[in-house]
């Protein structure tokens, strides 16, 4: 049987048709919108690439008429400190130390919990799920002080006070990442046909094998989205780190940048350079996870 594939129309093409405009006009408009949107980011990048001395003298856009202003001087200055405590690289490491475990734990625990909520056969799992969805509306801010007190109390009782430590921050992030993570994973897993699990069960797979050989590979798009969300979320967090890491000598990039703006208002060259550094890591994460966003992972499973 041969069927002529329908002529594919690009998104721009469809948009152009709907707006009764030519494709070129639509492309130009879209390009302008994109540039407008990128201006703050571009300015940040340009500022970081101009010498400190020029910051107060002329606007960053002067670089377009005088490209000789461009220099990596700011970068070599902030990197020259190496991994010394309080430096930008030390903060970068601290950010990774917090973000990677917080992301891994949330994706792992969410997948397991969602698996049980969707494919388990225990009573009341719908109610538990509603409860978890309910937790999503609890604002993080209201929990800060109670959790600090809880941490202190743990210190009193067990001699193990997570307050002021990196694990303390991770635990908080994981706890607040889980409701959304479970919500997302659960909704994705409900799309996986039960027949697939039963087929595996008959063929000899136990619960664990079914989870990681059948369900997990099919859930990769959802896991990738969740990982990106959680990573960026934790990476950009200032508040939790500020509250829970108070007094720790190592601080994540967000605190590092915050300190620069607070203590020395003129330190824009460090802020912009550090900000560009801090943008890079999530970008790497995003692009390396992007390949898991495959449409139609379940195609061919049934029918």
């Amino acid at each position, binding site marked *: 049987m041969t069927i002529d594939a329908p002529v594919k129309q690009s998104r721009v093409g469809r948009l152009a048709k709907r707006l009764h405009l030519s494709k070129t006009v639509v492309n130009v408009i879209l390009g302008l919108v994109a540039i407008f949107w990128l201006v703050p980011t571009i300015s940040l990048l340009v500022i970081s690439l101009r010498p400190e001395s020029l910051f107060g003298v002329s606007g960053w856009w002067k670089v377009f008429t005088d490209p000789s202003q461009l220099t990596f001087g700011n970068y070599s200055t902030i990197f020259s400190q190496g991994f010394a405590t309080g430096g930008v690289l030390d903060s970068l490491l601290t950010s990774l130390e917090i973000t990677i475990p917080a992301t891994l734990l949330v994706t792992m625990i969410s997948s397991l919990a969602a698996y049980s909520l969707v494919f388990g056969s225990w009573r009341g799992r719908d109610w538990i799920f509603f409860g978890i969805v309910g937790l999503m509306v609890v604002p993080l801010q209201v929990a800060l002080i109670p959790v600090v007190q809880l941490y202190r109390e743990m210190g009193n009782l067990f001699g193990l006070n997570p307050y002021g430590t990196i694990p303390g921050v991770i635990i908080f992030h994981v706890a607040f990442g889980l409701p959304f993570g479970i919500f997302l994973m659960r909704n994705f897993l409900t799309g996986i*046909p039960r*027949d*697939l699990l*039963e*087929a*595996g*069960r*008959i*063929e*000899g*797979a*136990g619960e664990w*094998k079914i989870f990681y*050989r*059948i369900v997990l*590979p*099919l859930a990769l798009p959802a896991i990738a989205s969740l990982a990106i969300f959680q990573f960026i979320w934790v990476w950009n967090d200032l508040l939790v780190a500020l509250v829970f890491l108070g007094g720790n000598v190592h601080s994540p990039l967000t605190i590092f940048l915050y300190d620069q703006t607070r203590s020395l208002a003129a330190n824009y060259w460090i802020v912009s350079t550090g900000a560009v550094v801090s943008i890079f890591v999530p970008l790497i994460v995003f692009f390396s996870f992007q390949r898991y966003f495959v449409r*139609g*992972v*379940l*195609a*061919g*499973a*049934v*029918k």
Partner: protein
Amino acid sequence: MSSVTLRDLTKQYGGNAALSLDSVNLEVAHGEFVCLVGPSGCGKTTALRMIAGLESVTSGEIEIGDRVVNDLSPRDRDIALVFQSYALYPHMTVFDNMSFGLKLRKVPKDDIIAAVTDAARILDLEQYLDRKPAQLSGGQRQRVALGRAIVRNPAAFLMDEPLSNLDAKLRVQTRAEIARLHHRLGATMIYVTHDQVEAMTMADRIAVINLGKLEQVGSPRELYDSPANQFVAGFIGSPSMNFVPMHVESVDGGIRVVSAGGDIDVTLDDAESAMIRSAGVSDVVLGIRPEHIDNQPRTGRGLQMRASVEVIEFLGNDEHVHLSSGSHELVAIVDARAPLTIGDSLTLSASSEAIHLFHPETGVALK
């Protein structure tokens, strides 16, 4: 390969008063092909899933080989199930789909390759082993699902409406393929379908299930020739059997049954009359298959009917003629060359052997 035995198998879903499966007894011999057939929701798939171990047993016993498997997990029952939806693993290639079960059982790699290649050859899938299910046609996916079952060489094959997602032509083709496969493997197969044609063409024996109860088990011919009750009679055969409510009358020491209005009448012989008498009924349901109605002149025993032609369905070799006889509607299959037009008045008959009589309340076959 081994036999499968169901003893008083019963299933009740929590909170449901009605039984989904009610004391079903069935013995499937070693190497036998048995079809469970019935309308949707009759419990046939439930029965199959219970044999597979995917549903718990409320009461009764399931025996595979000489083991009672009630409490064994699906993987320990040594059965393969072909799903209606095929349930192929979309992220694995055809080879991986077929070898998944063997890998889990830690079969040596060489044996896996041999088994998969063998099954692929039987099913004509050799050139697709590296493809993902999404790149296959419906028929090919269906064959992969069969292949996944074959490679494991299980004690019994369970199939849950494996053809229902194929188009009509492919269905006929695959039907023959499964029959051939059964013959070749000599495997015990339990096959669930709602399509009586599938059951009739493939099965050694058919088990008709309705509302959770086993209505009749027998060879396709037995079910066709001597249905145990009105349900089986109506379910087996296409177009299905005509049923007409009749009144019992005594004439000259014998018995005659007549339809309301008197357009259809059947004269019974002595043995049949005795049976009606012993049943003590004043009404019966007449059953007559469309293919048994003709216009040959008959006298004495058998069915006589006056009817007019309402609709003619031309099918090539023959025609389905929808008749109206008094207030009753019947279908007859006639030779396509018969010169019939709509509105024709006909005098039709059927031989005594072709007539079925059922109890008006219980539906049990009286003859």
